[in-house]
């Protein structure tokens, strides 16, 4: 599973992209985020406040409870500030 981070999520974690193989209990974006929190302080800080997180699955805006599988591209980022 390809996981991407942008904005201050990326800055706190320290990397912009990683290839991960989460355990079988990770079936939604929310559970992925919970699992990621255990990977280090940067992740814990980045994912501290889930209300300030936005996600995309396969480059489409999704909700935290969206289901994900192995081949998906999942992105976690702050609210977008385009324009």
């Amino acid at each position, binding site marked *: 599973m390809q996981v*991407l981070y*942008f*904005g*201050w999520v*990326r*800055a706190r974690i320290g990397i912009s992209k990683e290839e991960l193989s989460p355990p079988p209990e990770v079936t939604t974006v929310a559970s992925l985020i919970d699992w990621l929190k255990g990977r280090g302080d940067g992740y814990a800080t980045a994912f501290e406040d889930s209300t300030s997180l936005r996600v*995309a699955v396969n*480059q*489409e*805006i999704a909700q935290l409870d969206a289901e994900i599988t192995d081949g998906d591209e999942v*992105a976690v*980022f*702050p*609210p*977008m*500030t*385009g*324009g």
Partner: protein
Amino acid sequence: MIRVQTEDFDIGAEIGKMTAGNSEIGGLASFVGLVRDYAGDEKISSMTLEHYPGMTEKQLSRLEAEARERWDLQDVLIIHRYGTLNPGDRIVLVVTASAHREASLESCQFLIDWLKTKAPFWKLEDRESGAQWVESRSEDSVAADKWVRVTDA
């Protein structure tokens, strides 16, 4: 047409290309967003725009399609820059052309409002006190939400 690029754009040339040879256009609205030199009372020395390659193009194309579906438009152009920009630099250009002024003005406003909350860009300001991520504004969500149609809810 949509373009995501680091390079600057030439507003006059873009508008000229759009209107040349299309005399069905009666009204053409455009919006340019620029980097300001102050955030509140703090001076900004530069702004770095990060985006989500792939998703950005998808989202901008979707916004263009949505505008064309809602209004009778002759043409649409969205150019969004990324990378490091200085105060006074252009960030984004939206141009909408229609037979009628109302359609061009409304769709231009619509696109700018939706870009604010639906285009995957994030902005890091280099301020006197250090680097600072630009936060999303609740007014921008309100502005974006006013275009949500009842049938979409």
